[in-house]
């Protein structure tokens, strides 16, 4: 069914089957837990931030194809960015998956376009955003578990 292929593109399926940066990369100096109580997805996100640069990002936990793929893509996209640019990317990502702004995406974010399919599935947007919200909390260094519901 073609609508489903828009959501579950090959890149999503690949990242969900073989998530990148999966497992706790050490050393790390930021971490946070994320939980989506609706579906039971739980992630822990780790980051190493040094000299204002996100040197490393990794995650562990289990979730659906959308949340796992989104977490995996996130680690690849954010690694090596200045922290301030990582935060900007978080905002842009949010716009992509909620469809709030239909702006042209720059090349770094093109990869994220594969997640734009969740716009058509309001109940699934929280799956896509879980790891990102969690990483933001890790960068903010808040201890509270992030909840997307």
């Amino acid at each position: 069914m073609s609508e489903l292929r828009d959501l579950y593109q090959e890149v999503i399926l690949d990242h969900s089957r073989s998530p990148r940066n999966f497992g706790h990369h050490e050393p790390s100096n930021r971490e946070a837990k994320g939980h989506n109580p609706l579906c039971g997805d739980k992630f822990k996100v780790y980051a190493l931030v040094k000299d204002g640069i996100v040197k490393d990002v990794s995650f562990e936990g289990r979730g659906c194809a959308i949340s796992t793929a989104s977490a995996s893509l996130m680690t690849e996209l954010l690694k090596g960015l200045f922290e301030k640019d990582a935060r900007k990317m978080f905002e842009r990502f949010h716009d992509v998956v909620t469809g709030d702004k239909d702006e042209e995406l720059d090349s770094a974010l093109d990869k994220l376009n594969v997640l734009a399919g969740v716009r058509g599935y309001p109940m699934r947007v929280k799956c896509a955003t879980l790891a990102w919200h969690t990483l933001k909390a890790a960068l903010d260094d808040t201890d509270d578990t992030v909840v997307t519901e």
Partner: protein
Amino acid sequence: MSDIASRTNTLARFDVAAIRGQFPILQRPSHGKPVAFLDSAASAQKPQSVIDAVAETYETQYANVHRGVYELSERTSMAYEAVRGKTKGLINAAHDDEIIFTSGTTESINLVAQSWGRANLGPGDEVLITEMEHHSNIVPWQLLRDELGIVLKVVPFDEDGVLIMDAFEKMLSNRSKLVSVVQVSNALGTILPIREITALAHAAGALVLVDGAQGIPHVGTDVRAINCDFYAFSGHKLYGPSGIGALYGKRDVLAELPPWKGGGDMILSVTFEKTEFAAPPHRFEAGTPNIAGTIGLGAAVDWFVSLDPEGLAAHEDDLLAYGTERLSDVPGLRIVGTAPDKAAVISFVLDYAHPHDIGTVLDQYGVAVRTGHHCAQPVMDHFNVPATVRASFGAYSNRGDIDSLIEALVEVQELFG
């Protein structure tokens, strides 16, 4: 005639097509396909007679109850109170005043916790629940535990989802004050031996509260045969409106209970010095109730008792057997909850796809299932799964719904397998 032949005849007489025809929502497509509604355990759809009863209440006889002396209010009050009698009949209670209207099972359980619990429990007193309770029969007791220092004991179940009765017997003690137990597990479908549980609890001196949310639409209920002290259920799982349910309590037990919410309609007289409370059930029904919802519940009870109970049981057993057989043939599928005594609920997981992804794919095929932890996270933890897919059946479900589910699961396998 043999048992099997007799059962086949009973099943043949149960006219599912005619029942389906009474549910307008089942005539509407979902994603361009006929809807296969397999989520009745979360909330059942409503027959036309229930929809009409709610609409007609507002159109022809609505006013506040127990207050006015004018015709409209009198008619509404009589229609409202008549539902108490219907509900009494449904569960075979002895008296109308043993039926307290609530917003549903959750509120009914909270009523027992807040009224009976706070009046009767102290530090070290034990409340027993099971490992397969819905959160609504866990959290109210945890709140009391933190407030009063009671002990919450959890009776385990085995790998099939069967309650371990030996463990239950051993856990009962002279400190056990209440056994609060589910009649049918919403996540596993297990039917619990509540008569036996009640007898054992009573022998230990404990009262018994039965969470009948899933039990009442599937296995029928006779509170006097069970001999439970409290029985909680929701209207919306019994083909009635949401936001209305009931708590049954034995008359002598209710007579001793203090109110739990203060307000209008639950009093005899009020001065600033002293308030005298009304007798049960009104003592527990403060404020303007869910009038149209209650009348809708009455219509749902009328509709439900018009079904042939043996036919309904045979029909749901058939769907459970057929669904279990078809799902067992799906590669990589594991059914969670395999108790021999089971209601028409099938929870399952696939080893290559997360329940949420499965739910999204099934939805595109018009198949509505519940995916998630079913408000029973301890059950998920027991089986070490974050969530399951749950197909649950009602009076209007048919084998075609199950065929649609199986067909859609092929797409899941193609995508994720």
